């Protein structure tokens, strides 16, 4: 995985002025008036399409934000496109101002605010006032009767990736107990936890999954403590859903447990212990959307995709996955790619004993019901509040 390296994310910008100009300019520094006169690009020359990306954390976090930044880097390489990016933008009025600034000062007409919390109310406030700008939001549930037409939402069926993670975990686990470090009990996370366990249970129905919520998207020490607690509780395969999985992967491997990755490829952090990982492939999603925009086509307002569509992908299987595991992994993966595969299917109870899928009932990955998931399935040790 070299495409996540920092170098590819941040091409060197040529200095705007020569060093001699600089020194002369500094010497002539005579207050703000002089500064604003020297303003390069006050009226920035625009050619082609300007696309804005906004990240909620640092764009090289070995996880969520990095996966989006890698997608932005792919867009940057396209002809006729200017990419502008901002990182560490909180889900407050700050993101409204960042978006407005990209629109007003950079002439951006296609925005990718990539954090879920940017949607309501921030994107929904700006969209009606900027009808010529397309707001593409990651993770939201756009619906025609509630939301403006210039807003779109996109996401991927990464729960399928966690199901495949679970298959690898089921084959690698000896203790029959696997662990999940999770940030918050929200639908996207709950679907991942459930998928991970159900994947493992497709190998051995006696497997249980212990979940620990850290309560925050990025909190290094707590993630390490949670990982240690899971290993202490006997879990021998760990995965996670936090913004940057680096700490979880390194801590788990350091304790001798196997790990499954998330968001991006973390195999380099634990080559021996890394089984596989569920990764985003935003480069494909973003270049497709930008290509469509350049061609004057409209991006659909509601876009979803899975393994077959190239929205998500699996890290190559690590050396610790046994032969039987490889075979099952590849077979199920091929079946998922064919379409029609259901992870959540009856008879299935949640861990409170309520039936969540009756016998014969099955939810396809495309079913929007899954995006409102509020339960943990039987076999998951953890609570949703």
């Amino acid at each position, binding site marked *: 995985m070299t495409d*996540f*390296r*920092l170098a590819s994310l*941040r091409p060197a910008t040529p200095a705007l002025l020569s060093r001699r100009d600089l020194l002369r300019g500094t010497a002539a520094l005579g207050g703000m008036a002089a500064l604003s006169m020297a303003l390069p690009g006050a009226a920035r020359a625009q050619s082609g399409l300007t696309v804005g990306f906004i990240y909620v*954390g*640092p764009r*090289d*976090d*070995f996880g969520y934000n990095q996966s989006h930044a890698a997608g932005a880097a792919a867009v940057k390489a396209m002809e006729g496109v200017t990419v502008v990016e901002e990182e*560490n933008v909180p889900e407050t009025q700050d993101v409204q101002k960042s978006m407005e600034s990209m629109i007003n000062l950079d002439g951006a007409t296609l925005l990718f605010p990539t954090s879920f919390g940017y949607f309501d109310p921030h994107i929904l406030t700006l969209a009606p006032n900027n009808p010529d700008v397309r707001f593409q939001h990651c993770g939201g549930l756009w619906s025609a009767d509630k939301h403006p037409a210039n807003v779109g939402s996109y996401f991927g069926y990464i729960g399928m990736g966690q199901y495949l993670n679970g298959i690898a975990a089921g084959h690698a686990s*000896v*203790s029959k107990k696997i662990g999940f470090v999770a940030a918050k009990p929200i639908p996207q996370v709950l679907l991942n936890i459930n998928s991970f366990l159900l994947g493992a249970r497709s190998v051995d129905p006696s497997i249980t999954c*212990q*979940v*620990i*919520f*850290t*309560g925050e998207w*990025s*909190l*290094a*020490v*707590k*993630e*390490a*403590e*949670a990982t*240690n*607690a*899971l*290993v*202490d*509780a*006997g879990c*021998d395969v760990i995965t996670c859903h936090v913004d*940057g999985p*680096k*700490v979880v992967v*390194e*801590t788990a491997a*350091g*304790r001798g447990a196997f790990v499954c990755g998330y968001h991006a490829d973390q195999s*380099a*952090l634990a080559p021996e212990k890394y089984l596989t990982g569920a990764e985003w492939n935003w480069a494909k999603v973003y270049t497709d959307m930008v290509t469509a925009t350049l061609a004057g086509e409209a991006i659909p307002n509601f876009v979803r995709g899975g393994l077959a569509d190239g929205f998500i992908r699996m890290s190559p299987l690590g050396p610790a996955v046994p032969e039987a595991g490889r075979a099952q992994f590849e077979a199920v993966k091929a079946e998922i790619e064919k379409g029609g595969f259901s992870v959540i299917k009856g008879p299935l109870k949640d861990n409170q004993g309520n039936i969540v899928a009756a016998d014969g009932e099955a939810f396809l990955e495309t079913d929007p019901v899954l995006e409102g998931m509020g339960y943990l399935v039987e076999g998951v*040790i*953890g*609570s949703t*509040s």
Partner: protein
Amino acid sequence: MENDLGWWAVPLAVLGGAIRVSTPILFVSLGEMLTERSGRINLGLEGTLVFGAMAGYATAVVTGDPWAGVVLAALAGAVFGLVHGLICSMARVNDIAIGIAMMLLGTGLAFYFGKPFIQPVAPDLPSIPFGWWSDVPQVQAALNVNVLFLLGIAAALVLHWGLRSTKPGLILRVVGDSTDAARAMGLRPAVIRTMATAIGGAFAGVGGAYLSLFYPGSWNEGISSGQGLMAVALVIFARWQPINCFWAAMLFGGAGALGPALQSVGVTEGYYLFYAAPYVLTLGVLIATSSPNRALAGAPGELSITK
């Protein structure tokens, strides 16, 4: 790992967590204790901690030697402390305010220069397996003690003895309690305070190196969740005593392990409240041990924050 300890996992996790999590808090609070004993407060150690974490990690990546990282983190911390000390030696400059500005500067510089070091993997600091006698893996893991933790204990003991029984310790205490008395003895308070702040900064830098080079053992922008600021506050809690700094750090680290440990044995509801345990406990102890009459016994007389 077929050992199921049941509820015994909780005290064991608290012990292990105390050992793992307390070290950076211990180093920062020992450093701050020294600084405050001289009559100054450096609220900026959070920035020093984060910069130390970055500098230590970067050095370890480049040289391949984690101890070189620790040394450089200490040096960088000393420089930050020196800057704080020199600036605060100027008349009328407020040490609390400069500390807050330096918190911003330290984290800013760490993030600015730290970007290229998020991806590479640095070698970890070594640890000593004190749990060799046990065949329970959880016990072995809990007692896998990093050398810096032991150095921290040693530093607390040395500082305890040094402050009481040595001439430099006496000088520090005199300067901290009364500028006028120190001047009358022919001491130069500003110089001594600046030195104490620089040494305090070095301690905080080492604390940062522990974060990035041992536990959690990686460099990223979320590496510190305010441990530096908390450790400064804990010095007041510890009544400016080095040994108390150690207990405060252990209490804080151990209580922090309570949340994950309880979830791992099945107590899964209300985890945010368990996560608040270190703060609730500290506040509780503070209230129980304070009294309006003997307010802040042990506070250095010249310390602005308790005057």
